[in-house]
């Protein structure tokens, strides 16, 4: 009898306790936010937690549940399709078209129409989050492809000026390899995100009249240049294919003197591969012989889950607005300086004027020449195929018929992606 009473009492506690706990939790509205700093980035997490506490103080009864999770399409798709997706997510703007097409993202025209902060952001960033005049994301940071070079290597090799043209890359690389055997000029990974800049600089384009077109003179010219860097001028180390992380490691280790990149990667390279920031200079990506200035713009944006309630959507919008507000951005800047953190645009809204800082003097104002990737929902897949079947091919084979390669690729695109 005694045992039965104890058992029943235990059972009651087990059943009642979660109910009480849930009731207590229900009093707070929980806003789930993805892509917050991980515990590995201790200082960044500290700054983020402080901002979160400030927001919760401003909105009593609201709890922000920050989850450190980098954007991964497969994970995002799975969780959103299950209907249990997060309320707010920080995603690369290139992901927005396909996610919007699948119906995951809330339309934010109503919210942004009267939002004054909107005007301080580069228009190119708004173009990237807009499809059929519907706004699916709020741009956060912005960047465009630049060139990083190692000042120490340039100094050792007697090079005093940053490369201005494609030809400079070849000349400088030859000089570097001659003066410092075992060190090369540049490494390129077979990645459309970088290659696209060379297409634009060569006068080509990738998307016209609602169709992807990768078989034009600009693309051929850019392919020829990349192929010659590898096979004719030996600008790159003796490796057929470099992945993004390989290029970053080689640059940090001083094995290559130049690399195309975006400024937001520099803190990561410093943290992961021990890159000494004092040795790095950021300059515009050299231009082709057409003289066209064109750089690939990118960035991240906040998106709001289409599946949440109107009330929660309102709250999510408040959270995004608060994070981007000048006051929060300024306090973040001050706090990061206090904590001796590396200040880079990736941590701040594109509405700020962070580019006024001395380290970005060489690239200030150049975002006006930046181009956005097409907002075609199958573009990420086409990009992946282009990397695989075109760019890898030119890095592996010394003799390539560019026309044939591009023709084959376009046939594949037509077959696979024309709906």
């Amino acid at each position: 009898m005694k045992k039965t009473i104890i058992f029943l009492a235990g059972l009651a506690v087990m059943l009642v306790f979660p109910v009480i706990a849930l009731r207590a939790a229900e009093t707070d509205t929980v806003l789930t936010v993805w892509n917050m700093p991980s515990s590995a980035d201790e200082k960044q997490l500290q700054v983020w937690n402080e901002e979160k506490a400030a927001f919760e103080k401003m909105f009593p009864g609201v709890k922000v549940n920050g989850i450190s999770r980098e954007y991964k399409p497969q994970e995002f798709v799975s969780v959103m399709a299950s209907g249990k997706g997060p309320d707010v997510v920080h995603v690369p703007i290139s992901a927005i078209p396909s996610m919007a097409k699948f119906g995951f993202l809330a339309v934010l025209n109503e919210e942004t129409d009267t939002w004054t902060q909107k005007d301080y952001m580069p228009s190119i960033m708004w173009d990237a989050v807009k499809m059929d005049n519907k706004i699916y994301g709020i741009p956060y940071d912005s960047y465009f492809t630049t060139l990083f070079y190692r000042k120490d290597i340039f100094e050792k090799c007697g090079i005093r000026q940053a490369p201005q043209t494609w030809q400079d890359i070849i000349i400088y690389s030859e000089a570097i390899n001659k003066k410092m055997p075992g060190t090369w000029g540049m490494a390129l990974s077979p990645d459309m995100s970088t290659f696209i800049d060379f297409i634009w600089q060569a006068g080509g384009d990738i998307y016209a009249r609602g169709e992807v077109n990768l078989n034009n003179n600009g693309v051929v010219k850019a392919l020829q240049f990349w192929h010659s860097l590898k096979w004719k001028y030996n600008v790159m180390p003796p490796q057929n294919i470099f992945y993004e992380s390989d290029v970053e490691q080689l640059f940090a280790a001083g094995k290559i003197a130049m690399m195309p990149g975006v400024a937001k990667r520099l803190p990561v390279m410093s943290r992961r591969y021990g890159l000494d920031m004092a040795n790095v200079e950021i300059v515009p990506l050299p231009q082709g012989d057409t003289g066209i200035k064109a750089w690939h713009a990118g960035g991240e944006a906040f998106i709001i889950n289409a599946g949440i309630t109107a009330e929660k959507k309102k709250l999510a919008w408040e959270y995004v607005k608060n994070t981007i507000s000048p006051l929060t951005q300024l306090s973040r800047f001050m706090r990061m300086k206090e904590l001796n953190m590396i200040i880079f645009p990736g941590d701040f809204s594109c509405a700020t004027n962070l580019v006024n800082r001395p380290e970005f003097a060489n690239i200030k104002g150049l975002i006006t020449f930046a181009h956005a990737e097409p907002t075609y929902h199958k573009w990420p897949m086409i990009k992946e195929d282009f990397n695989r079947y075109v760019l890898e091919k030119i890095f592996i084979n010394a003799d390539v018929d560019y026309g044939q390669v591009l023709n084959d690729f376009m046939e594949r695109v037509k077959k696979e992606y024309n709906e």
Partner: protein
Amino acid sequence: MSDDIFGRVGNDLSENAIKGMVDDELKSHKKEDVSLPIIKLKLAPTVDNVVDIKKKEKKEKPKESVFQVPGAPGLISVKMESTVRLPDTLTPSQKLKKAFRYRRYGRPARQTLPSTVIVKPLPEYKKQDMMKLKGYKLKKSLLGAQMVLPALLVFLLFSWLPILKTFTIAFQKFETINKPVYVGLANFTKILYDPKFWEACAHSGILSAIVIAIGTWIPLFLALYVYEVRRGSSLLKILYFIPFLTPAVPAAILWKWIYSQGFGLINGCLSFILGHPVAIGWLTDSKLVLLSIAIVFIWKNTGWAMLIYMAGLQNIPKNLFEDASLNGASVWSKIKNIIVPSLIPVIMAVVFIQIINGMQVFTEVYIMTNGGPEGSSEVIATYMYKKAFLYMDIGYASGVAVFFLFLLVSITLLRMNLSGGKRSNR
């Protein structure tokens, strides 16, 4: 005789010496009386030395049971019968068995109970008691099921439910949250005409073939080595098993560095040995990439295969090796004629597990090459993954998954069939 004894004993009149002489006398004279010149003694017959010195007429005692437990006579206080009545219901062979058992181990105590025991009739049972008993029996029989149930539920929920769902989606056009549309066998028809899928299949097949060709024999020879060389074998076993315990992702990243074409360890060593720069594209040459991935896979799985072989080796009777050694068999002859034939079922098991694992390889490919260069290392698992999460064609990816499942099930059935055949041949 007496004089002789005296002569032999001499001045040594110790008790042991005399007893020894007496024993000799007793044995030589057998049942005669013994008369000794110096001492007179009458030895009680011992257990070892049961010789009747003098035949005495003994009173015939009633024979006691031959089945009495030797060494524990006090345990049975009841007088036993000399014979055991065996029930007539037993067959002659059963009776014989029982008789042998009783003779060897003694009659069970219950058999020794007097036949006059009054057997009380069992108390009459009530209907509700019977119900209780039935309930108890049911509870007892369901206990196992109850214990298995939580694990079974988890297994069904996270293993079988997704499998069943995959089967459903395989017949639909399904792109994330858009409403799935039933398309019948369209996804399977598409598979048949999808060259990329067949390329991936071929790559998986080649990878498995390399894994079998190398990965079956290296662990076997390592196991033989560890089996024969006892010294430090535990350390060796641990060393070979460590790669198996290493998580796949760090292992793949490590090997990616080792294989690096420009700055990797392998090319570095080769450059040092050959004296000129070597830049072999282990992961970037489409002819080498599958071999390189297979090597990583073999490195990782050698440990467990070796352990399986070790277990198989332990089961080979030692006398086979002893006989072979006595007949002058060489080591190779022992391997060829004893070890390999004895290990064939184990080798088959390892081969089939390697095939299945080789077909399922994902992490190594995804981390080291992501299917490159030019798709030359794309395998079924990475192809399926990309179709689902990069190209968002979940319906088609599910079709590929189902197709792949049938392929693996066929291999498993083939294996079961082959091992079943082996068993029936024995």
